[in-house]
């Protein structure tokens, strides 16, 4: 009789411990949906606030990272990301009128079944004032933001972040008119002597296909699909995988 009771107690103990594990995992996954939005949005706030240190703080330390924006190439270290943000987005400098704001909208987030990673896709629309020697130039920006996250010591960090440009258009022209001159590599009117197009990326641009009335749109980046572990999961960033339904 005693043995039966002992066994029952052990069985209940195990059941409670397992239940706790499952619940903790599900709570973590539910919380992650909000936390990864916080991570992206802290980055976007810091980006408009021109705080390069705060921007790179949102990237992971334990895995290889990547950042890609516009057509500057891929940046794979915090140092290089910071350099890009300082050189091309004038972070940490008092350049009059320089400002870029990107809103995150339309979130689509999937947290891995094991609760260790997450992926998300957002629409983004914003305004900017790009500094030139003739003063700041106003433009609209529209993007899709794709991100992969990893949970590091309870905090959600980017392992990959890519801002896919849909269009950047002169305030006074439509998005059918193409990008303004001040976004072209050979533009001569950037505000600092010696300003030049970024040439220190860790890799070439993977995917740059803004809206162009002469080219059909491709479905890339794509909304994240449910997955259990990061390994072999469908990517959010870079080049579309072979066979992707674009």
């Amino acid at each position, binding site marked *: 009789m005693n043995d039966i009771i002992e066994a029952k107690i052990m069985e209940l103990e195990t059941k409670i411990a397992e239940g706790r594990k499952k619940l903790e995992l599900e709570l973590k996954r539910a919380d992650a949906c909000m936390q990864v939005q*916080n991570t992206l949005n802290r980055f976007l*706030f810091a980006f408009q606030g021109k705080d390069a240190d705060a921007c790179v703080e949102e990237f992971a330390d334990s895995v290889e990272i990547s950042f890609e924006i516009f057509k500057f190439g891929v940046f794979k270290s915090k140092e290089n990301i910071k350099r890009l943000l300082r050189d091309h987005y004038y972070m940490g400098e008092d350049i009059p009128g320089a400002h870029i704001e990107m809103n995150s909208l339309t979130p689509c987030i999937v947290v891995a079944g094991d609760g260790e990673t997450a992926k998300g896709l957002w629409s983004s629309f914003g305004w900017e004032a790009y500094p030139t020697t003739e003063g700041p130039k106003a433009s609209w920006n529209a993007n899709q933001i794709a991100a992969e996250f990893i949970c590091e010591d309870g905090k959600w960090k980017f392992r990959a972040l890519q801002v896919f440009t849909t269009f950047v258009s002169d305030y006074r022209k439509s998005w059918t008119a193409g990008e303004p001159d001040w976004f072209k590599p050979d533009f001569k009117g950037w505000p600092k002597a010696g300003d030049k197009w970024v040439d220190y990326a860790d890799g070439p641009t993977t995917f740059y296909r803004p809206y162009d009335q002469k080219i059909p749109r491709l479905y890339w980046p794509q909304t994240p699909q449910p997955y259990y572990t990061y390994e072999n999961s469908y990517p959010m960033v870079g080049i579309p995988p072979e066979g992707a339904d674009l």
Partner: protein
Amino acid sequence: MKLSYYDAQLDRLESMIDSLESEITHGVSKAQAKIDVNNLMGKYTFYARYMMYNRVLSYFSNREDVSLEISDLGVYIGKAKIADFYKKYCAAFDGKGYGVLHEHAVSTPVIEIAEDGLTAKGVWLSPGHEAFPVDRADADIEETEAERGHKVRSSWVYGKFAVEFILEDGEWKIWHMQYFRTFQIGFYDSWTDVEKKDAWFTVVRSREAADAFTGGPSAEPTYTREYDPQGTLPYWPKPPKAYDTYEGSDPVVGAPKE
């Protein structure tokens, strides 16, 4: 075996279940709080766009130190003062809604719920657009060619919300709300048009005009920096950091610390 042994075992199992229950409640209520706070901001902006200020008021805390600060209009402290502000603001812009469009969306949320679950803080970017009738004597606005003959003027209004929330009788309420206007500019002008920027919407931008219909704020504005094509815009407000209790935490409203 003695009965007391089994009593102890049962007690242990019971305490394991209790601790599990409290962990679930804490985790779920924190997750729910983030959804509730985000929804609260959504509701605020939806009702505000239709000037339904009785609804808007119901989202504010009943505490004496509840506050509202909208760009350069000063700080309104206490619910009666906030009610007065909204009532008169609404009336000043033809509360019936003819010609009025007042849409300030909220996006890009960063929300932190205090570990003790009693307060929360959040920041949002806020792209918006407005339209106002200008057939009023005090609306001295330059007419563009495209607008000539029309009785309403449209403008872009972009800004940020920073809000502190408090749990009151089980419901999340706005405790301190501040709207930081980044720029307001006529539809036909851009935010870099220096010469147009200051002329736009004197009726909204002038403190004297605003005070005339709101009865004046409880305190001077804490922060009025806007985007300036000839200057730099400081990084403020900043997203909240994770925090345990409200006391001693970094504020998201007011002016940045020195």
